[in-house]
């Protein structure tokens, strides 16, 4: 696809202190236990108290991250709002299922039903910012954020001046248990800072809400350029192997041009072999910071953009880093969600 795409603003609510101040100077948050939860900000600076009372957690996280992102970019009313979410508002879905049972389908409060709708966050953002343009929500596991990004890039290419793109997912104790039943999480309880010392089946879970303001033009405040995006659904090892050099070649790059790969490596031995395609690349894993979830790619992109903007890797977050790269021009992100949805994203310094 032709056309350019720059990150003009961004905001992230994650298990790390990424929301306020200088995120690159924050110490790593260490959690004992296999379920990382977001360090939630004070929502009252973003959402009116009467709205706040009705909203459940991921709605608050999503709306607040999107508003902070718009503030950061200086764009009040974006030309489109496109998001991705694997699970939408889990809390509301769980609550409505339970209330149907507990009240035997009678006299139900509709609020959890309304808020369980996957596009509820998009609707809230549109309502709050009076954004009457294009509005879309992708709900496809490890492709949710990436298709939101592709849709955004298409919109910029088609002439939309700016797009708010983002992703949000939450984890609940109930859902953590449910996904544990099909082997998503490690059996042994670990701390996130020790994730890679525990190669075994399963990983640790996480959550986050991350938004980006995207434009086709570069300015002095641009964080980075999004140069390329590719998705591969359940690729064979052969297909995956050729896909990476081909992807780089399509963007005029070779392996040696990649200064850093942020990899979705998560110490899950069931699906670790895919990351072997990165052998020889300078790389850092990031899921000890975020845990794993459907739209973690948005956090990886936020991280890559921060690193490119600051021209430095925050070493307190990456104790495995031996030395800062000589240059930081091109960052590749390679992630997959439990071996099914594989994604490459390419970011350039501006």
């Amino acid at each position, binding site marked *: 696809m032709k056309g350019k795409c720059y990150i003009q603003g961004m905001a992230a609510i994650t298990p790390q202190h990424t929301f306020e101040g200088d995120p690159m100077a924050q110490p790593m948050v260490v959690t004992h236990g296999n379920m990382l939860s977001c360090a939630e900000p004070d929502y009252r600076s973003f959402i009116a108290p009467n709205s706040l009372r009705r909203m459940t957690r991921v709605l608050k996280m999503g709306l607040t991250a999107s508003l902070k992102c718009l503030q950061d970019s200086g764009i009040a009313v974006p030309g489109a709002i496109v998001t991705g979410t694997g699970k939408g508002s889990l809390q509301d879905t769980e609550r409505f299922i339970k209330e*149907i049972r507990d009240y035997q*389908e009678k006299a*139900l409060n509709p609020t959890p039903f309304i808020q369980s*709708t996957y596009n509820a966050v998009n*609707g809230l953002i*549109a309502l709050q910012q009076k954004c009457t343009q294009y509005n879309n929500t992708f709900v*496809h*596991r490890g*492709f949710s954020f990436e298709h939101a990004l592709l849709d955004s890039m298409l919109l910029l290419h088609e002439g939309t001046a700016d797009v708010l793109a983002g992703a949000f997912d939450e984890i609940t104790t109930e859902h953590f248990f449910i996904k544990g*039943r099909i082997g998503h999480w490690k059996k042994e309880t670990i701390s996130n800072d020790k994730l890679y010392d525990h190669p075994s089946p399963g990983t640790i879970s996480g959550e986050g809400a991350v938004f980006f303001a995207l434009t086709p033009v570069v300015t002095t405040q641009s964080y980075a350029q999004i140069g390329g995006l590719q998705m591969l659904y359940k690729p064979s090892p052969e297909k995956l192997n050729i896909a990476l050099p081909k992807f780089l070649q399509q963007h005029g790059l070779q392996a040696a041009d990649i200064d850093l790969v942020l990899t979705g490596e998560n110490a899950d031995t069931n699906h670790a072999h895919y990351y072997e395609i990165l052998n020889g690349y300078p790389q850092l894993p990031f899921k000890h910071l975020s845990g794993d979830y459907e739209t973690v790619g948005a956090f990886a992109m936020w991280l890559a953009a921060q690193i490119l903007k600051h021209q430095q890797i925050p070493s307190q977050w990456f104790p495995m880093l031996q030395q800062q790269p000589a240059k930081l021009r091109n960052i590749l992100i390679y992630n997959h969600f439990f071996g099914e949805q594989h994604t490459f994203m390419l970011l350039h310094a501006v």
Partner: protein
Amino acid sequence: MAERVFITGLGMITAIGDDVADNLRSLRAQESGLGFTRQLDTIYKEVLPVAEVKHTTAELLAMAGMTGREGFTRTTLLGLIAMQEALKHAGVSDVQDEVTGFINASTVGGMCDTENVYFDIADPEKTGDFLNYIDTLDCADCTQRIADTIGFDGPITTISTACSSSANALMYGARLIKAGLVRRVVCGGTEALTRFTLNGFNSLKNIDKRPCRPFDQDRNGLNLGEGAAYLVLESESLVKERNATILATLDGYANTNEAFHPTAPSPEGDGAYAAMKTAMEMGGCIPADIQYVNVHGTATLSNDVAEGMALQRLFGENVPKFSSTKPFTGHTLAAAGGIEAIYSVLAISHQIIFPNLHFKDKMEELYITPETQLVEQYPVRHVLSNSFGFGGNNASLLISKYEG
């Protein structure tokens, strides 16, 4: 210059038919699919009418050729049956002969099956076959099972924007083709009835205990339905290469947001107006070019006022024939946009306008009334198909006769 996008295959299953031909027959016979549920376990079994597909899930498994396979939800099976028909209709025997995308739409994924086992799934004391359904909790499961069964190797994703989901899936598919990322993509949606959505809309007091009456003064809400519908979209170059039959063109589309209220439209129908106007203009049409509008027409109090006002604003004194087909199919949520896009294609290819069933009295807020008769041999060249949803999401598609 971006390529034009053509519709080359249709496949569907609804309460009024197991395939497109069966749907057309029921539309012509004016046979509604509304009745009481046989599949859902709900206290509203004999209270709230629904438009249910007339097969058990086991029968659907056999119809889809999947007998003996585990973990296929009703949502997936409805989708798979519609998908198989759409590809066959388009003359595609092997989807891998050309990189083919699949853009699906769903509002609650496999909830139809998971809601029956959810408390077992969440209970550490219990174990059993229900664990096979854990992955069906989300919206991607149905898409991937359909994709894996058929063998799609292009872009795959799922859209969820409530009741406009599959209209947005069609739009996204068309844009992928126009951007040159793919030359063929199958788009639409699938939806099975669930206790979750039935209780959801009922808690909003949006469900009529009678068969729904779109655009009637005495309307009192919607009836839910289930079904699936897929349309094969292909680029002009691919259609020429393989000499495929063009059923209609998708020359215009729009997605707008009202930014008015989480679940209700603005009384003046601002979002509906903007969506229809933008779609029409994108396709190079003026109001006089439109012969038929397949309206969203859920028969809720607020939708029909808003949509009717939008029609009056856009078309003035010359509102084209319009009807809601929801009294036939019920409101099939994520599948509605796909189902109604297919009806729009049928309106063009058979030169026919479908009646808006159950209409009696004009709404006091409007001067227009829907078409209540089956109109044959009507010169239909351009159709607008509307899908509006929660979160203020409005989508409109312009489907046109192919005239070179």
